[in-house]
């Protein structure tokens, strides 16, 4: 069931559709509010022109998202953790015609904006006109998201309505729970949120969301999860680890929780075993996919033998999607059990980046494909992820190109060289370290540079900065990352 029709069939339902710290919206309230905002979008924004949506988890966020779906205008979610300068660049790169600000904190200069008060006035005024859904084709753009780009500019991914509908249909087939609230912690600028919000809204289930300020506040966090009483949680492995750090994350405290859908990071066997011990019989589904291929393209239920073997698979490929393992140097397809680059084709692959960047999008043997840059292999139809072919890392669920941070540093005055690398602990990224060396005699202040970066990069991408008189180099004159890694 496509998104708009899937949502609007619950227009007459008083069941809860959205639960956040500010309260609950019923399906009736959410759909009516979204249709009032859709009327505004149909008047103010030409067809095909994207609409930015700024905020965090406010009730107006799903209203704005649903309004864009109903009016068939692509939406660009911008979480409040994204600094204004970057948000501005995203709006420009997307060619956004309007910004709907569900939360305070950002007034763009490059696009017209409707602030939270005016939005609420239109959305919740019973006298305002409610728009009927606009005609839409599967090839129309549904949402836009930006990912880190190694050249220094974030890259915009455009996901079509057909991509999203195909993902949601498959996601539903992976799950056993068909009712009960769906818990999500992901920000809307992270596509894991699509797997929670749109699944819930098109299935008559309540989307229960957790604000980021809850993540370090266990009493409040557990209180909110208890109130929401989810049957399904859509989460990253790191978030599960956070919950597991409390002994009370267990079936006794959350008896309704029956299923967990993981995506966004490698899931570890240890995490799965601890979850099974705390929630006997809970169903755990692992999945994998890059934003460029619409949330996820592989998935399967975790079984005892997988946890025992140590390496967890990320699942089988989604119907309609083909994944080949390809030798990154020769381009040849590799046989079962041999590691290579995972290359995706089919109905989950998005049409390409906004703007000229090509990235991993390519045509292989006449088939439009996406080279993921992920190293993986296939065994008996199950795919396994083994890491990255390049320097891309994941931190706080965010995909980060160290090259983007380096390029940003190199644009600061007085920096001759910059190198960014992760500090790993137990195989996990714990922190980012940036090393910079000054150009001829300039004094560099690390604290001031960090402050500058905070104004340009999302909070999760800001490294700690250390100044070196000169960068260590390899014999052939390249930055010696191995030597930097050894610095205390």
């Amino acid at each position, binding site marked *: 069931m496509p998104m708009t029709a899937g949502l609007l069939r619950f227009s007459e339902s008083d069941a809860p559709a959205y639960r956040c710290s500010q309260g609950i919206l019923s399906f009736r309230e959410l759909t009516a509010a979204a249709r009032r905002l859709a009327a505004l979008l149909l008047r103010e924004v030409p067809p095909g022109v994207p609409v930015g949506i700024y905020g965090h988890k406010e009730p107006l966020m799903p209203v704005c998202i649903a309004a864009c779906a109903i009016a068939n205008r692509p939406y660009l979610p911008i979480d409040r953790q994204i600094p204004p300068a970057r948000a501005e660049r995203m709006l420009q790169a997307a060619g956004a015609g309007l910004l709907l600000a569900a939360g305070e904190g950002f007034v763009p200069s490059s696009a017209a904006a409707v602030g939270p008060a005016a939005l609420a006035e239109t959305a919740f005024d019973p006298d305002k006109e409610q728009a009927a859904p606009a005609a839409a084709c599967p090839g129309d753009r549904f949402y836009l998201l930006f990912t880190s780009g190694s050249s220094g500019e974030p890259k915009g991914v455009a996901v079509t309505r057909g991509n999203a509908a195909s993902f949601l249909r498959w996601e539903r087939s992976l799950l056993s729970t068909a009712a009960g609230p769906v818990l999500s912690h992901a920000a809307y600028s992270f596509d894991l949120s699509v797997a929670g919000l749109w699944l819930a809204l098109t299935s008559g289930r309540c989307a229960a969301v957790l604000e980021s300020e809850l993540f370090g506040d266990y009493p409040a966090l557990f209180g909110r999860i208890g109130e929401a009483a989810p049957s399904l949680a859509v989460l990253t492995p790191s978030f599960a680890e*956070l919950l597991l750090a409390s002994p009370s994350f267990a079936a006794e405290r959350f008896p309704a929780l029956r299923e967990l859908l993981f995506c966004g990071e490698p899931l570890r066997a240890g995490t799965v075993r601890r979850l099974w011990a705390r929630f006997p019989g809970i169903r755990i589904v692992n999945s994998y996919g890059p934003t460029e291929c619409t949330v996820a393209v592989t998935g399967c239920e975790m079984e005892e033998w997988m946890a025992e073997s140590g390496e967890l698979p990320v699942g089988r490929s989604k119907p309609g999607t083909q994944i080949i393992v390809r030798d990154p140097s020769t381009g040849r397809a590799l046989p079962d059990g041999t590691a290579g680059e995972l290359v995706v084709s089919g109905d989950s692959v998005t049409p390409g980046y906004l703007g000229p960047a090509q990235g991993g999008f390519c045509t292989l043997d006449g088939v439009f494909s996406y080279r993921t840059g992920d190293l993986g292999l296939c065994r008996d139809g199950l795919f396994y992820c083994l890491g990255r072919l390049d320097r891309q890392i994941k931190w706080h669920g965010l995909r980060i190109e160290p090259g983007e941070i380096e390029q940003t540093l190199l644009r600061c005055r007085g920096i001759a060289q910059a190198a960014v690398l992760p500090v790993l602990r137990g195989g*996990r990224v714990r922190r980012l370290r940036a090393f910079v060396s000054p150009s001829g005699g300039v004094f560099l202040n690390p604290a001031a540079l960090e402050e500058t970066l905070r104004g340009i990069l999302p909070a999760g991408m800001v490294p700690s900065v250390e100044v070196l008189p000169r960068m260590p180099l390899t014999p052939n004159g390249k930055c010696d990352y191995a030597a930097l890694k050894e610095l*205390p």
Partner: protein
Amino acid sequence: MNQPEAREQLLEILTEACGRPKPPIRPETDLLDSGLLDSLALIELLEGIEDRFGIILEPTRIPRERWRSPSSILRLIEEHQG
């Protein structure tokens, strides 16, 4: 374990948990406003306290404010040592 030893141990756990930050963590460092004690660091801190002090803390019963600085965490540990 006397108090200076306990403080030393705690600072070691925090230094590792927060990824050896610079400048180094001091007893009055604000771990929350600085963003040093993010969710992953908090998990490591809980594990570290269990390993080195033999105390299992139930984080859902601990208000967020009590994680603010090494000194306030030290008081928390002392209370649980009874």
